[in-house]
Every structure is written in structure tokens, then in C-alpha cells.
């Protein structure tokens, strides 16, 4: 197992942009809370992008490509305008949309011009877009081990979901099929990441509302494999994955005909606990499946 997170950028510390996106302001406020708490613990200064809008999510790019690009492009343009050179995007879907948008615009000058006209703002297109693993790796890296005061001594199943590492040729983040970045950070935080088969399987995503039965099945398979292999927690970095594995647990358990109570927590919550933050400070009380670590 490589100990380096693949292709994470490297640079000097300044003020970093923070794009929460809709989930982190609503159903996953604990993700936002834990990201900010961890950043603070590591002296990383995060500045929320002013006047941000929705990234377009799945809905926009299914309906209208230019709309989807324009929504994300406006966020990129605002970041540039506010003098930011890098922006942390904790939500996997937002991270994916922003990165893909910047890539597409940089590879098609005419499209870029059209989108710039639509949003009525210029785009340079050289923003560094980081997910939380990249942020921690870039600014904390080896210091993580020193900062750990209460090692997260549990067996964990690191669940990446579909959006964090795909499409690989654009994101250039981690390994495609068997990613390692979360596993490495969790190991540095004192946890014991397990080998399992569902790291990048689909959780059912947006079908949570319309086809809860499908989500119960897909998420159920993920939760079961983690539980079967003795994981004490599932570690995630995506609000959608978290809500499907956590909020839909009753339906999952019904599908599995088995009661599984393994908690699903954000990587920033686990690292937060490891560096001595209280459960409250990382919003651990907000999950449906109780998450308590002695």
C-alpha cells in the first residue's frame, strides 16, 4: 500500500477558500462543523466563498450541460474574484462538479467563452480544488501523527463512494478502483482500516427519495460487508453516502433482515476525535445511528 496520497498537490499556506455547498448547510451540517473544527485544529484558515450558489449537482448536468457548467463556473469565478487560488470542497458531488467544470472549460475555449458570457464573469481556470483528504495531506501531512492525542483505535471501513475518484482522468485523485487516501489518513490517526470489497460501490445516491428500496439494497450490501469484516465504523467523505448509509438504516436493516448498528461518520469527525476534539465539537451527536467511541 502506497503511503502517499496520489497526485495531491503541494504548496504554501495562505487563506484557502471554502465551498460548503447545500448539503453542508443543511442535512450534513455536522460535516461542515467537523471540517471547520479540524481546519482550526491544524491552523488552516478557511474563508467561505461569498455569494456562492448551488453546484448544479446531479440534476443540472442531466438536463442542461451549459446550465450545469455555468452554475459551477460561477463558483469558480467568484473564488478567483475573491483572490483565492485554492478552495476546499468537502462534498464529493460538489468537488466532482467543480473539478469537471474547470477541466471542461480549460479544454474548450469556445465553451469557456460561452459560459463566461452566461455568468458575466471572467474565469482564469487555474484554481486548485481540494477535497478534505487533499487538504489534510497538503497542509498537515506527516504532522498528523504528532497531533494525534487520542488515537482513533478502531477497525474502520473507508468508504469512498463513486464521485470522489471518478472520472479518474479528470480528477487525477487517488487510485481508481482501490483508493487509499482515506485509509492512509485513518491509519495515521490510529485507526485500523480493513480490506473490503465495497470501497467505491454505489450507495444508491439520489434514489434515496424515489426508490428507497434500491438504496436499501445497494447501501445494505455496503454496510453488511463492512460489518461482516468487523468494522466498527464506516468512514465517509460524502454527505450523500453518509445520509444513505445512516438515515436509511431502518430500511437497510429491513432489507438485510439483520440489525446492524455500525455508525457512519465523516473522516473529519474521526480525525477530529483523534486530535482531541470533543464529540460535540465535531457534531457526532447528529447521526441517526448513534456514534459513540469510547
Amino acid at each position, binding site marked *: 500500500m502506497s503511503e502517499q496520497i496520489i497526485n495531491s498537490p503541494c504548496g504554501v499556506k495562505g487563506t484557502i477558500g471554502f465551498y460548503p455547498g447545500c448539503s453542508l448547510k443543511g442535512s450534513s451540517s455536522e460535516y461542515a462543523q467537523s471540517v471547520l473544527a479540524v481546519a482550526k485544529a491544524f491552523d488552516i484558515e478557511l474563508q467561505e466563498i461569498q455569494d456562492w450558489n448551488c453546484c448544479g449537482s446531479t440534476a443540472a448536468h442531466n438536463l442542461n450541460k451549459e446550465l450545469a457548467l455555468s452554475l459551477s463556473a460561477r463558483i469558480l469565478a467568484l473564488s478567483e474574484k475573491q483572490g483565492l487560488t485554492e478552495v476546499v470542497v468537502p462534498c464529493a458531488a460538489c468537488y466532482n462538479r467543480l473539478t469537471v467544470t474547470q477541466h471542461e472549460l480549460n479544454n474548450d475555449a469556445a465553451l469557456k467563452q460561452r459560459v463566461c458570457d452566461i455568468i458575466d464573469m471572467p474565469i482564469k481556470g487555474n484554481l486548485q480544488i481540494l477535497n478534505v483528504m487533499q487538504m489534510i495531506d497538503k497542509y498537515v501531512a506527516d504532522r498528523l501523527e504528532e497531533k494525534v492525542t487520542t488515537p482513533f483505535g478502531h477497525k474502520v471501513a473507508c468508504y469512498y463512494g463513486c464521485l470522489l475518484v471518478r472520472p479518474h482522468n479528470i480528477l487525477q485523485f487517488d*487510485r*481508481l*478502483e*482501490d483508493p487509499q487516501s482515506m485509509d492512509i489518513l485513518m491509519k495515521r490517526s490510529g485507526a485500523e482500516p480493513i480490506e473490503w*470489497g*465495497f470501497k467505491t460501490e454505489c450507495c444508491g445516491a439520489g434514489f434515496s427519495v424515489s426508490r428507497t428500496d434500491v438504496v436499501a439494497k445497494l447501501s445494505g450490501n455496503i454496510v453488511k460487508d463492512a460489518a461482516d*469484516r468487523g468494522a466498527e465504523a464506516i468512514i465517509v467523505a460524502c454527505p450523500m453516502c453518509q445520509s444513505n448509509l445512516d438515515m436509511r438504516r431502518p430500511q437497510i436493516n429491513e432489507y438485510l433482515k439483520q440489525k446492524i448498528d455500525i455508525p457512519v461518520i465523516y473522516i473529519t469527525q474521526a480525525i477530529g476525535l483523534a486530535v482531541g476534539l470533543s464529540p460535540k465539537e465535531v457534531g457526532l451527536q447528529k447521526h441517526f445511528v448513534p456514534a459513540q467511541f469510547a
Partner: protein
Amino acid sequence: MSKIGVFICHCGENISATVDCERVAAEAGKMDGVEFATDYKYMCSDPGQTLIKNAIKEKGLTGVVVGACSPRMHEPTFRKACAEAGLNPYLCEMSNLREHCSWVHEKNEQTTEKAIDLVKMLVEKVKKNKPLNAIKVPITKKALVIGGGIAGIQAALDIANAGQQVIMVEKEPSIGGHMSQLSETFPTLDCSQCILTPRMVEVAQHPNITLYTYAELEHLDGFIGNFKATIRLKAKSVDYKLCTGCGACTTKCPNKKIPSEFNEGLGMRTAIYTPFPQAVPNKPVIDRANCTYYQKGKCKVCEKVCPTGAIQYDLPDQFITEDIGAVVIATGFNVLKTDFFPEYGYGKYADVLTGLQFERLASASGPTLGEIRRPSDGKVPKKIVFIACSGSRDPAKGIPYCSKICCMYTAKHAMLYQHKVHDGESYVFYMDIRAGGKNYEEFVRRAIEDDGVNYIRGRVARIYEKDGKYIVKGADTLLGSKPVEIEADMVVLATAGVSNPGAEELAQKMHVSYDAYKFFAEAHPKLKPVETNTAGIFLCGACQAPKDIPETVGMASGAAAKVIGLFSNNELTREPLIAVVNRSAPPVFSTCVGCFMCQTACPYNAIEREEIKGRDGSVIKTVAKVNPGLCQGCGTCVAFCRSKAIDIQGFSNEQMFAEVMALMNE
């Protein structure tokens, strides 16, 4: 006064679809010194050539320009036609209207204008052409065959049986190649070793074949008929003259835990080893990187047990130089290893194997003596999954091409499994079944219908391990992409066939071209499949692209036929397009001032020193002289010459300037 004939070819529609050929001919007819100009649909055809020949005779032409395809394609054709009509062939030039014009531009006025310019350049050049005569060089009638797999073996035997000398170089300690690793062969299920090993022995015993195993080509200089090959004989640490192949050393060697290359890592070998019991030559070498003596300075057990004193630790690599006339490249291929596939576990699962590893399991000479057993725990797998196209036909993550042999060997593997494990269940995931070949389709049907192999059309998205089983997740696209999950005991990946790791380096050593996947490139995909772009160097087998045994053997015999054909002449005719240092009357003798910059520049060591002597024998002047046998006509010396004393015949400075001036004087 020149009388030039211009012949414009339509090349079917290749040229005429974008270039107005009639107009090009009409314009050419008006050019200064052009006596005759015409166009024709296929100038290279018999009527086309006759057109040229008749014009030469009837109009008394002093030069010919053919506006057609590239000279690489048809210059020999048209020069031959001219020669048959009595014109010196080197007074015929080709203007490339196809590759340089019609294929790369759209149909419009400018394209035709460009074609006219291209013709005009060559008309001006051909006016300056001088009659030249072909150069005769002797041929060394000895072939070098690189690689001792089935391709090299077949080529070497065919050449040797035709009475010519062959030197075979094999990098491993034994010849045999991949074919010696195979269990049974499709579509007849005859034992690979049984048909191969007699031929290996034949190579070793043939009076016309000199075999160098554990050896590699170090350098290749020279040209067709007159190559000089330097061969590195890697130190075997065993004197083969003394060694009787008794095997005492290999049984006593204490270092027994080295993964065997022959068994694809499924079995172990010792540090002093013969790759397999039927090896040719059946004598061991010491793998110095894994030998305790070489690594730690003491052991020497093999020396103590050797009854003939054949172990010689201090022998260095040796280099030998051989004069040869032709080369056959038969270096074979490789397969991707399981660690190439992230979705199939990055190589971390012991019972996820490559097809080649499965061959070793199924082979009577393999680590399990032919029983199909899991490498992890030695159990017989009751459920086995084969995945065809592992890496092949996958432009995104693997290689875009089809590896050609996998459909067939996968059917064979599943069949062998069913024959050996009667209560076993086998599944094959496939994209398409490509079973083109005599009795091939029938063979696959036999696997499906008679042996009950379950064929599932679809890809496998992931393999993961759970409770000692491998969960194979895929889709059945013939059942509406229904997800399929199989709990397998063993998975065999038909991993893509790829080029050998050293292929690129070898190609560069020999100046032969290779493709994007580092397979050696044939000179023409259809009509010159065994030739390379370098004269005198031929290729056969899977070093050109993945191919099966019958095709490899056919190609090897083809390459051998080319070598035998070459060796059937005593002399070779070479193009006279080489450099010459000018000579003139006394007292100048030559404009060469004897600086010998050309000598340092020449990549072929073709420049010699010549002393011009007076009647009394005293040296008047030392000038450069080009050895016509070595010169390749590259022109580097021309560019280096400060006194403009060197020219390339057929491409003189005067001719080149005439071409350029033809464009300038609009």
C-alpha cells in the same frame, strides 16, 4: 536539351478525388524541357507502365517524372519500367502527389496548384540527374535468429535445412519460449511439450545451427548482407564443456525459494538451475542475483558437489562478434500481470491468476503436476471463473487492441478444467467470442455444448475476497444487463498480450521501427508482413503482434523463406545513392581539403582516408573517400563538408537547389 516525360497517376481516386490530374498533366506539358505529359488512372499497372515505356522509346525521353504515390511504394516499379525501355533507371524520379498532397488536403484549386509545383520541382531535378549504376556487394550467408521460442525455432530450422548457417541467440538459459510453458494446445488439445521439445532438440543438434543461450544481442552494425553482430554471452558460471547436466548442483543448492519464471511464480527454483527438466541445453546456470555465494561471499555448495569441476564462479560476461547477412527477430511477447488490474485486486489475491499461470497449473510438468489446485491452500477449486479481455479491447484502462489468442485459450482452459474437475463449475465472462481459424469455432462450441462451460456475455466490474471465496461481480448483457455475482474459488484473467520489456531497446539497437505498443513494425501490413523497414532484418511471431502457434509458425517459415531467398544470390545489388567525394584533374585532384570532419560525422564509419600520390610515390594530398559498401546515403557528411567536396549521388546539392529554385522562380 532535355526531353522530359511527365506521367500523372490518378491512383484510382486516391489522387484524382482532390487533385485535377488532367490539369496537372496539361500544365506539366508546358514546362520548360518537358517533351511529353499525360495522366492515367493506374500508372503502376501494366498498361500504365507500357505507356511510360512507349513514350521513352517514341519520344526519345532523357528523363521521366512520375507524379503518383510515395517513392517508398513504387519507385522501384517505375525505375524498372524505364530500364526496360532503355533509359537509365536513375533518370526516373517520383513526385509524391498522394501522401504529400491529395491525402492531406481538401479538394480545391490550391491543392491542384500544389501538385503542379511538386511536379515542377521534380522536372527541374531530373534535368540534373546523371545515369548511375547499381552497386554490387557480397553477401555473408549466415543468419542471426534472435529468440528461441517457437517462432525462432521454426525460422532457424527452415533456414538451416535449406543449407544455410544460423546463429540463434536466446536470453534465457533454455530455448522453448512461452510454448514450452503451455499445457495443451487448441484446437486439438495436443500436448505442447510433446510437439515442441523434439524441435528444441533438433535445433541443438543441427550441424548448421550455432546456439547461444543466456545470450543477448549487444550491437548490430552494417547493412543487408553484411551485418556485424556483437553478442553478449552472459556468464553462466558453469563450464558447459565440463558439465554433464547430472543435476547434483541443482538438488543440493540451499537457496530453494526463488519464484520460478518458468512456472510463472507458482513454483520455486534454486539459485543454480535449469528452467525445466526438458530444457535445451539441459545444463544449469547460476542466477547471480539470488546466489548466496555471489551475494554473501560464501556457500559454494554447487562447486563441492559437482563431479566434473564445471562450476566456475569468476567467469565474466563474454562478447563475440559474428559476421552475418540477415537477421530474424523472433523475440516474442509477454502478458500483463494480475497487478495491472485494480478492479480485480491489484494482484493481491493468490487465486486470481493469469492465463499463463493457469497453463502451468494445468501442465503435467507444472508445480501441481497437472492438477488444478489453488495456490493459496492447495484445494481443488469447485467453481472457477475465467475473464476474457482482461485489459484487451479497453482503450480507457488497458490496451485498445484485441490480443487475439485469449478467446481460444480461455475456451481451452475451461475445457481442461472440466476434464480435470468433473464436479466443477466453470464460467467464462466474454465480450465477443473471436474464434476465427480452422476448427476454432467448433472448439469453442465443444467447450460450451459438450463440456458444459457457462458462457456469460458481459464484463466483470470487481472481484473481492470474502470468507475464502472470490466474489466476482459482473453483468449478463444478454439478459438485459442483469447483475451476476459468482462466488468463485479461483479466477483466471485472460490478460492482454503485450510487447516484451526490452523490445524498444532492441528495436533501437537494430534500427527497426516499432508501433505505439512497442511491437515491431512490419514493412507493409499486407504485402510485407515479415519484412521490417530495414533491409535484411525480418520478423516473425508475437514480437510483431499477439498471435497463436499456427500463425507464428507460418510467419516464421515466411521469414525463413525471405532469408533463404536473399542467400540464394552471391551478390547483392544496392542502390548507388551514396556519398562520393569529388575528384578533378591535377593540380587540384579534389576540392576536399582533408579536414576529415566528415569522418567524425559519419554514423556508419564509411569514410576512409586516401592518399593521392605523385609518380615518384610521394604523397601530394590526403583526401576523404567513401566506402560504397558501408555508406547508407544519409547525407550527414554533405552537411558537414566545408569545401562542398561531398555530394550524394542522385541527391546532389545541384539537384536539391534546382528543386528549390523551381519553387522560387514563380
